[in-house]
């Protein structure tokens, strides 16, 4: 699940990428590869295609380390948006090549948009909510164990789980005010 990196770590990493440190590239990959690959897979529904998008996204970041602007949000959500754009771009290319039913493509694009919004919501929701979801979902604790783990009452654990999911469920509604990570601005994103 999404755990944001400390901003300081992100800035430092960006500097190291700009310096051309191969080790920093490895760290970037280790931290974000599963995010990039899973987002790409959501759009492409194909492992090889997702691998390909993953290569393109990391290639783009490595070639353009200064493209990320920390003032606009976390490195993670920037990478998520980049992946989204790149994957949709690829998918549309396949579509142009008559490989895929346009309706299927649009459905996947919608689903991918939802996934990207969900990712944004999870990374920007209050940490206590995220921690509760993390325990219940990722660690598979029931809410009583999660309450114990968080040092809160069982009522509070239930409240956090419910509220966290309520926030997350808004990802499925295209609403104003949340970043629409793709297609708003032409969609044929900057990663190519």
């Amino acid at each position, binding site marked *: 699940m999404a755990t944001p990196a*400390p901003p300081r770590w992100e800035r430092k990493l960006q500097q190291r990428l700009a310096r051309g440190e191969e080790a920093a590239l490895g760290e970037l990959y280790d931290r974000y590869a599963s995010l990039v690959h899973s987002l790409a897979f959501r759009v492409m529904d194909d492992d090889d295609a997702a691998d390909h998008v993953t290569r393109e996204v990391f290639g783009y970041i490595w070639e353009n380390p200064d493209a990320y602007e920390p003032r606009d949000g976390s490195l993670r959500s920037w990478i998520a948006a980049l992946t989204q754009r790149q994957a949709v771009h690829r998918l549309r290319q396949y579509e142009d090549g008559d490989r895929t039913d346009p309706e299927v493509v649009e459905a996947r694009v919608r689903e991918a948009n939802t996934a990207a919004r969900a990712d944004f919501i999870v990374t920007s929701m209050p940490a206590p909510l995220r921690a509760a979801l993390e325990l219940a979902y990722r660690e598979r604790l029931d809410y009583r164990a999660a309450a114990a783990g968080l040092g809160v009452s069982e009522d509070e654990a*239930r409240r956090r789980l419910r509220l966290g999911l309520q926030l997350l469920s808004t990802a499925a509604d295209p609403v104003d005010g949340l970043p629409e990570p793709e297609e708003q601005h032409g969609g044929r994103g900057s990663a190519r």
Partner: protein
Amino acid sequence: MSGAAFPGGGAAGRDGGRLRIPAQREQRNAPDDLPVDRAPHRSAPSGGVPASWERHVEVPGGEGPEEGSAAPHGQEAAEERPVPEKTSKGGCRNASGRPPRYEHATLKSLLGAWALTACAPEEAQAVEAHLPECHQCSEEARRLRGAVGLLHQEDSLDLDPLLRARVLEGCLGRRPARVPVPDWAGAYDAETARLDALLRDLGDGYWSAPVRLQWFDGAPVAQQFTVGRVIAHLTAVDGLVGRALGLPSTSRGLGGPLDAEDGRGAPARMYRSRVPGDEELPLDPWERTTADWEARGHLPGATLRSMWRDQSHQLVQTVAFAGQGVADLGVDYGYFELPFRDAFLDRAFECWVHAADIAEAVDYPYGPPAPGHLHGLVDLAARMLPAALARRRRAGLTTSAARLVAAGTPGRSLRLEIEGDGGGEWYLPLDSPGASASPEKAVAHVAMDSLEFCQLAAGHVEPERAAAGQVGDRAVIRDVLFATASLSRM
């Protein structure tokens, strides 16, 4: 990789208290209109119903957006307030076979936990019995279940470990690194990344899982540790390389990452203060490990992992800056020394071996290193063999006839043929580590699969049981196989 092992029904597949980490791909496309009344639920961790199981819960104020519209249910709740007969022997159903009754507000507060299958079975039943009767709750239940599907985000658990090399290679083809990682540190970089991915997949429920380590110390040794201790062991011995690079020890001045919210990403230096007396930790890998366990055996697994990972990143970063200049400088292991180029291979080898130990302990698939890296590890073992053989000869542990020859002069040799990925052919000098070894003077020929050879060098296979094709001087072959096993440490 692990996908097939996951029972499709969500949390239902608990075994022995902890669930194998699922690959979430099966669930990835879970429709959000999942019939809510057939949702799987997990059992309470203790099996029964906790004594403190609350049925009277105050209506939490202002908790949900639609709280205000709950009037009709509020009515209902009020009627139910003299809460049900104390049924639960075992907590399931009362005499009439109906689930215990809950107030509407309680049921509603449970919806999040229910959607995550994170409540007790009785509670899940109560929620599910309530949903068909309550439009408002069933609407929210459907929504929240849908939201759970969105949590699957980063769970590309079965990401191909070899993708990393391909992606990095692609990047470097587009823009060459100005500070490249030396090729001899590549295996360490890749193997630490693989182990880290394994640990991430396992999550925090496995730190105390028993792991059996085996090595060969004159005879086969096997001891049981935990996942956390194995990681701390790797950190401690990796620390020898860090020490040689002038990095401060991770084992001193511990405070844990400062960023309490995120134990993973915090830069290492936040909990590494430069404490005088770094040198207190013994150099011998075994003693160093033991001292390390004493110093920080109490730390949570996630902290141990982030310390290990931060240090491994730091080692790669530092050695990249140091460059080829340090390749031949020595790393002090206490009773022996390896040049940096070999120490990084040695650490990669141990990282792989222990990662495989952990994976086996938790029944998780774990493949060998990439062929190019595997070759480096096999080559290191082959190059270390002559000295290991000489050590055993000096200790009187060999049976083959000894012949002393001066360094640099030709002596008898053994042809070591390693087959499979990462394999190759080596002629090992038998009479002195410094003697030159040539095909002409070969007195024996051993052929082994590369993975079998690594298992032997890791002390996981007994020398006499190793699957090896053997031709020539039997005593020499026996000595070489034992010397290979003697390369292993804890």
